[in-house]
């Protein structure tokens, strides 16, 4: 039963949304609970997240809330990309206008000197 004590500093991956909600809803067996608790003993991120999620009154709602944030973030990411494309288009347009102006200027000067 006693395992090597050096397992204290073993690292495991961060907890999934399902693991956290299962733990909070008491849907885990002893050994699953133990490995989750071993992870949070060494990971501030998961530990604080668990403390926060404990405060949600209806734990079954956690996935719904996360999904809402997910959708909002997706919209933000898309908007950010679209804005970058728009900026590129403006740069290109102003470049074109400058070229046309130079051509007009050259044409005008050529005409002017030709008349002279």
């Amino acid at each position, binding site marked *: 039963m006693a395992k090597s004590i050096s397992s204290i500093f073993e690292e495991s991956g961060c907890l999934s949304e399902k693991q956290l909600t299962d733990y909070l809803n008491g849907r885990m067996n002893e050994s699953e609970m133990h490995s989750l608790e071993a992870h949070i003993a060494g990971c501030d991120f998961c530990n604080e*997240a668990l403390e926060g999620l404990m405060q949600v009154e209806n734990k079954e709602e956690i996935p719904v809330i996360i999904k809402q944030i997910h959708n909002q973030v997706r919209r933000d990411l898309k908007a950010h990309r679209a804005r970058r494309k728009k900026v590129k288009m403006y740069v290109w347009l102003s470049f074109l206008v400058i070229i046309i102006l130079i051509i007009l200027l050259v044409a005008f000067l050529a005409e002017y000197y030709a008349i002279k």
Partner: protein
Amino acid sequence: MEPAKSPYYSDGELLEKYRHEHHNGWLGILLDRYLHLIFGVCLKYLKNEEDAKDAAQQICLEVLKTLPRHQVVYFKSWLYQVAKNHCLMELRQSGKMHLLPLSAENEPESVAERDKKTELMEMEIKETHLHQAMEQLNDAQRICVALFYLQNKTYKSVSAETGFSMLQVKSYIQNGKRNLKTIIQRMEEEEQYPHETKKS
């Protein structure tokens, strides 16, 4: 390859792809991986579901804007720091800092510091050092650490066996583990540079 149809990538690989291809989709996958943790951290500090939802979204935007300017190696620890600092800033601005218990933990921490900690966690530890270090812990920490790590008990059963509350058990184990790390580091430094440490 399109981010949405990709196989499993590590955080580092996703970060690399995002940097090379400038495609926000890669960052989206990374953020999705930690969205529930970001929300949880926000909730811990802000103590209100709606505020925490807004803050989580803002943190993602902040990541989108600042990630290209930072040399991030450990995305996860960097993200945690960004999230925590955002919440602390929000509390400070709204004058609600008093909601937090006073401790060094609640001061914004630099990313360099955080990376150093991650590095220390990855070092190899000598078993003899560990046993010696255990003896230096206080009783509560030593008992909880032993029951938890040697007998694979859950917080609940450690609590039932010792009479400490679940929260006490949790913090004894966390602090015990942290202390063990510090004690072992000191032992290893003394082994490496015995003369320097004797002088000071």
